[in-house]
């Protein structure tokens, strides 16, 4: 009976969450049938069957998070028998078949089987302590991360008593320390995370983390350790906005209108092609320069932040870049991004202009060497040929991994981007 394993659906994926089972025990399955929707660190993706047969058992419930490579379902040749084996044959009564098998939920086994991608430096996940099956069952039921529970069993095994103490401590007060237990010393429990904020009981509502939120947090923590600097330039957006208006007028009522962001994607792609040192990644003992220019655009979704990618944006005409970017943003909001849509980014743009933010700095999107923060296009008094006039300005802030790139190179990139945006008709040729 082939096991269906939790697949690796992205290069940073270590575990996936069963968002929904589309097939159920007893259903006939053909190769290519969608068995389940899997929520990864980046998107919700379809899991297709490789084998034909009958779905016998689900080994992970909806909502369960399972490390990659672990079985999540069993496809067999025959309908599920509800038994683990052929059982006792012959004249014995069938009532004694081993029917006691529970629908086993997956254990939150330690991550670690995941091989790192060649360039992805990843946040080290705290090694999960050994834990009893019951402790894992309880932890899963109560949304408790066992990584932060100290085990009192042999070899530091987390047992039920530890989990119950952790749950009680969490419920009572996040600051409850040792001594919460009456007779036994309570295991040291850090609610949420080490050094987590100390919030008095009742002061905050606890919101369980989505996979996306957790991964985002991990990656941002990773990013914060990168030595970086920020460069801001002010762009006169007049020509850019005129061009956009003209292009959209030319497109008429067609849906794929071109946005400022689309123009920036195309502009950045062009300048990145000319500045391969920015389109790169710090490789520890070497610099890696990407062969492609793939520009990601940060999109806010309810669960967090995703960065769909316009691949080879330097090679595509503006209209195609715009069409792809809109399609990606729409699918991002629906949680329907595929693996390809979110992989391979070499540079990222984050635009908060639509919220009226005039200027901000973005946080690096590891392992990329640079990210561009785009503010709002705002009318401002500027000096032009010695005269104060009103111009529509746009503030661009480039955040740079200093290990990969120095100030002068980054400044040159930004200057070239600025001059392209002042003469945006070049984006059309």
């Amino acid at each position: 009976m082939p096991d269906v394993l939790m697949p690796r659906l992205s290069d940073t994926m270590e575990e996936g969450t069963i968002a929904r089972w589309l097939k159920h025990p007893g259903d006939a399955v053909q190769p290519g049938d969608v068995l389940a929707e899997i929520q990864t660190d980046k998107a919700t993706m379809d899991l297709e069957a490789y084998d034909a047969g009958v779905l016998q058992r689900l080994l992970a419930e909806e909502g369960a998070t399972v490390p990659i490579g672990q079985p999540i379902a069993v496809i067999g040749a025959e309908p599920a028998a509800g038994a683990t084996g052929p059982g006792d044959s012959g004249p014995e009564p069938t009532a004694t078949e081993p029917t006691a098998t529970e629908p086993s939920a997956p254990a939150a086994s330690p991550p670690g089987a995941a091989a790192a991608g060649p360039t992805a430096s990843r946040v080290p996940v705290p090694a999960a302590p050994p834990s009893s099956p019951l402790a894992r069952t309880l932890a899963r039921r109560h949304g408790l991360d066992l990584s932060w529970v100290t085990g009192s069993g042999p070899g530091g095994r987390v047992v039920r008593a530890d989990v119950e103490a952790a749950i009680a401590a969490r419920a009572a007060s996040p600051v409850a320390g040792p001594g919460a237990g009456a007779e036994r010393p309570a295991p040291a429990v850090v609610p949420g995370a080490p050094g987590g904020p100390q919030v008095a009981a009742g002061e905050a509502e606890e919101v369980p983390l989505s996979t996306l939120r957790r991964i985002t947090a991990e990656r941002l923590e990773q990013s914060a350790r990168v030595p970086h600097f920020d460069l801001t330039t002010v762009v006169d957006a007049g020509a850019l906005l005129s061009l956009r208006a003209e292009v959209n007028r030319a497109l008429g009522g067609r849906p794929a209108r071109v946005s400022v962001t689309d123009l920036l994607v195309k502009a950045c792609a062009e300048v990145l092609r000319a500045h391969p040192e920015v389109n790169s990644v710090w490789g520890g003992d070497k610099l890696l320069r990407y062969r492609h220019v793939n520009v990601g655009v940060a999109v806010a979704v309810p669960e967090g932040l995703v960065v769909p990618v316009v691949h080879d944006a330097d090679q595509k005409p503006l209209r195609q870049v715009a069409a792809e970017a809109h399609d990606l943003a729409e699918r991002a909001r629906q949680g329907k991004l595929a693996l390809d849509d979110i992989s391979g980014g070499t540079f990222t743009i984050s635009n908060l202009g639509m919220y009226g933010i005039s200027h901000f700095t973005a946080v690096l999107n590891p392992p990329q060497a640079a990210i561009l923060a785009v503010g709002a296009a705002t009318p401002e008094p500027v000096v032009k040929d010695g005269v104060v006039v009103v111009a529509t300005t746009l503030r661009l802030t480039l955040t740079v991994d200093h290990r990969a790139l120095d100030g002068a190179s980054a400044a040159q990139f930004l200057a070239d981007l600025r001059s392209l945006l002042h003469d945006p008709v070049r984006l059309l040729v």
Partner: protein
Amino acid sequence: MAEMTYRQALHDTLRAEMLRDEAVFLMGEEIGVFEGSYKITAGLLAEFGPRRVRDAPISEEGFVGAAVGAAMLGLRPVVEIMTLNFSLLAIDQIVNHAAKIHAMFGGQASVPLVVRTPGGGGQQLAATHSQNIEVYYAHMPGLKVVAPATPADAKGLLAAAVRDDDPVMVVENLALYNTRGEVPDGDYVAELGRAKVVKEGTDITVVSYSRGALVALEVAGRLEAEGISAEVVDLRSLRPLDRPTICASVRKTTRAVVLEDDWLSYGVGAEVAATIQEGAFGYLDAPVRRVAAAEVPLPYSKPLESAALPSAAALLKVAHETLDATGFPR
């Protein structure tokens, strides 16, 4: 209810079954004139005559084979093999004939054979006469294997075995023949394949059978005095194994220890532990532990024999360790 010995319960049940059904007859070594090596068949030759209580030569394969044939043709033979150890001489008849004929010949014939035989060590009978090799038979599809621990079960399970249409091994225990207990009056037939929770508890499950079930109850009593509530599951039947009852208990207590008189490797405890991890994995707070015989041919020397057999003290120690491993306060 009447209090009697395990031995008496077996004797009375054999007699009652012979009175109830003319097809029931006994065969074995020394069971007639000598009234049985352990006196289970005392008085039955005199009462039923040599046609129904047949002394056999020292030829286990011969008389078990004869019994298989008699069973196929409609009689209900109850064979006594003097000890479980000697069943090895008849294992081909039991395993390759009695167990398989029904399946191999399209159900044309059943084999309603009972093989009664005592196992168990502790009597200073040395390595070849002290074995607990019931798993040899419990491994075998087509057979049923019961191992009563009490006089009541000796009656109920033996009666059920005689009335069952398939071959049943009734594995008695030398150490139990003189134990006493209440036995239901009249026609009392137990259900084959059902374990029994002989003491309810909430903190730890002790699974055992035969002599071990009595040791488990004794240890449960000691734990009770310490404020620990142990549940004791007496398997009673090794094949079929009552997996649901085992798993239901462990789901309640989250901890399990198996006490078995056989050797650890490939033993009853291994099967029970596998059953628990298949059926109650997410409920386990500690590994399933096994207390079994030392893996040596059982010594003759009394101190060595005692040291090799699983004891109440060993079970108590492992139960404590299992509780401690889960932070159980005591």
